[in-house]
């Protein structure tokens, strides 16, 4: 049942991709196709990354309202990047070759996220709303710190960081596309690898531990995977808070299944499909520039409010 629906979702994504690629195609076909394919790849990577990251995050936080963006994961990335530029100088930063730089940034994020959120989850597992709020404010604090650090940069250095500040699907860092694709593929594989353990973890920390799961260890490895995925999506287009919430919520809704083996791919496919379809509609149909990120935030925010207000009383 779930597998059929997953196939259906994949078919839907394939349709969107074809529409996006072939819509109104004329002139130098090869050139246009290569341009579109590049952006398409970025959209799919970002959508898949944030969908997967959110599903895993919701499981280890044991809460369907959370996304890594809400608790400030991407602010942490922006902050770390700012600190890197600040400490190395703009010239030193841009002189670094792409691959090691990305790896180093991601490694920083993995370390920092494990420290911060690992602590948060272990301490606050029983009081979920306090944990979310702490995370949200932590996000504000990190954004504030990044803003503060950016004031200390000179304009040319600032321009380097600025790219990571706003979500934009039109200016995509395509030189990082290959590394990003490899990273996302590895992270997806890893998340499927731990999918059975995630099924157990979804029962809650106490039950999972009774059943013999090394819960704390699993949380740490899940946080590492999430960090890689968030690093990819933030590096490519900038912070997006609610895309993951949309795709994870839809994945649960469509599949009605609790196995992460199918949930994770479904969330990835839905995330990618939302972005590709949205970009196709906005870019081609409505002729609007740059509005997609904002619309995703708007709709996702409404969904979040709806979920909060309809939450069954404990």
């Amino acid at each position, binding site marked *: 049942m779930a597998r059929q629906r997953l196939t259906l979702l994949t078919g839907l994504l394939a349709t969107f991709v074809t529409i996006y690629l072939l819509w109104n195609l004329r002139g130098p076909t090869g050139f246009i196709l290569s341009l579109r394919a590049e952006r398409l790849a970025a959209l799919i990577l970002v959508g898949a990354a944030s969908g997967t990251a959110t599903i895993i995050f919701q499981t280890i936080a044991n809460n369907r309202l959370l996304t890594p963006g809400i608790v400030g994961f991407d602010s942490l990335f922006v902050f770390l990047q700012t600190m890197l530029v600040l400490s190395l100088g703009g010239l030193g930063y841009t002189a670094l070759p792409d691959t090691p730089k990305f790896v180093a940034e991601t490694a920083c994020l993995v370390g920092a996220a494990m420290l911060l959120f690992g602590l948060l989850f272990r301490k606050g597992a029983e009081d979920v709303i306090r944990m979310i709020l702490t995370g949200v*404010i932590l996000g504000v604090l990190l954004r504030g710190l990044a803003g503060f650090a950016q004031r200390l940069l000179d304009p040319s250095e600032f321009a380097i960081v600025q790219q990571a500040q706003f979500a934009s699907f039109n200016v995509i860092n395509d030189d990082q596309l290959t590394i990003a694709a490899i990273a996302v593929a590895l992270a997806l594989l890893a998340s499927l690898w731990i999918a059975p353990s995630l099924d157990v973890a979804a029962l809650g920390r106490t039950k999972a531990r009774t059943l013999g799961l090394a819960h704390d260890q699993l949380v740490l490895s899940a946080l590492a995977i999430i960090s890689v995925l968030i690093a990819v999506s933030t590096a490519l287009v900038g912070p997006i808070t609610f895309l993951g919430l949309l795709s994870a919520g839809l994945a649960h809704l469509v599949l009605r299944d609790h196995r992460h083996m199918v949930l994770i791919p479904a969330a990835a496919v839905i995330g990618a499909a939302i972005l590709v379809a949205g970009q196709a509609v906005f870019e081609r149909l409505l002729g*609007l520039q740059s509005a997609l990120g*904002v619309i995703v*935030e708007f709709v996702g925010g409404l969904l979040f409010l709806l979920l909060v207000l309809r939450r069954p009383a404990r």
Partner: protein
Amino acid sequence: MKVAWLLAGGLLALALVSVSTGATSLWNGSVDRDLLLVVSRVPRTCAAMLAGAGLALAGVVVQQTVQNRLVEPGLTGTPEAAMLGLLAVTLLAPGAALAAKMSFAAAGALVGTIGFFALSRYVPRKDPMLLPLVGLIYAGILQASLVWAAWTTDLMQYISIWASGEFSGVLQGRYELLWIVAFLAVALYVAADRITILGLGEDYAKSLGLNYRRTVYLGLTIVAIMVAVVVVTVGAMPFVGLVVPNIVSRWRGDILRQNLPIIAALGAAFVLASDVVGRLVRWPYEIPAATIFAVLGAALFLWLLNAPRARPHG
């Protein structure tokens, strides 16, 4: 009474520091000292104090109205709503007088604040942390609409001016609107007892003979105007209204008639101090007071969230 003298003395000392701090020294004789004082330093000091007092008072009124200590207008969408009002008047009547812009901003802020108040009645009260979260998301939705409206009309730069509160642009003749805050503070002082009763909840307030609805709208109107004035003249500054009333309430309980002057003075002192720090950190360049306060305020809020209460409430 001792506290009052202490606070007044501290504020005066801070004001003196603020007046004598800046890119140019007052005592090297190359500038006209009186002119510098009258045109720039004194207005700037007054503006910081008025903005701080206004935001802190607005915070306490909202907290009493929705009966939740973890919210404040700056984190629940009021500045965003004011900016939407400003954007509307900028688009509809670009040449409008300051008073007209001001009234549109205040009207927008009022609608946004009442919207949050209406939303707060649907949020389950069991968990006090839920409402601030809902407020943050509500603010995010307003922010998304604001960004979208500004993006499609090429007014993004306006927004970035309003969004981050700073005092470097304050000169004689450009901040006087802020004195409205002083008048409103007096009005609030007159209504202090009613607003204290508001904090007991709708049922209690009604059985004590208070016209609940009218008092709520009076309070929210004062909040909206105060926030709108601050946004129009210096820009948004989150966290002031949250941190200051909480500190005062932990310290002295909840009798507003006694507390309002202390809250106002402390708010003024905090904002003025962050402005002075912002002027000194990267002398002779400046860092916006809002940036400094966001870091400070977020850290304080995290402490408020997670520190055990010193003594039980009431």
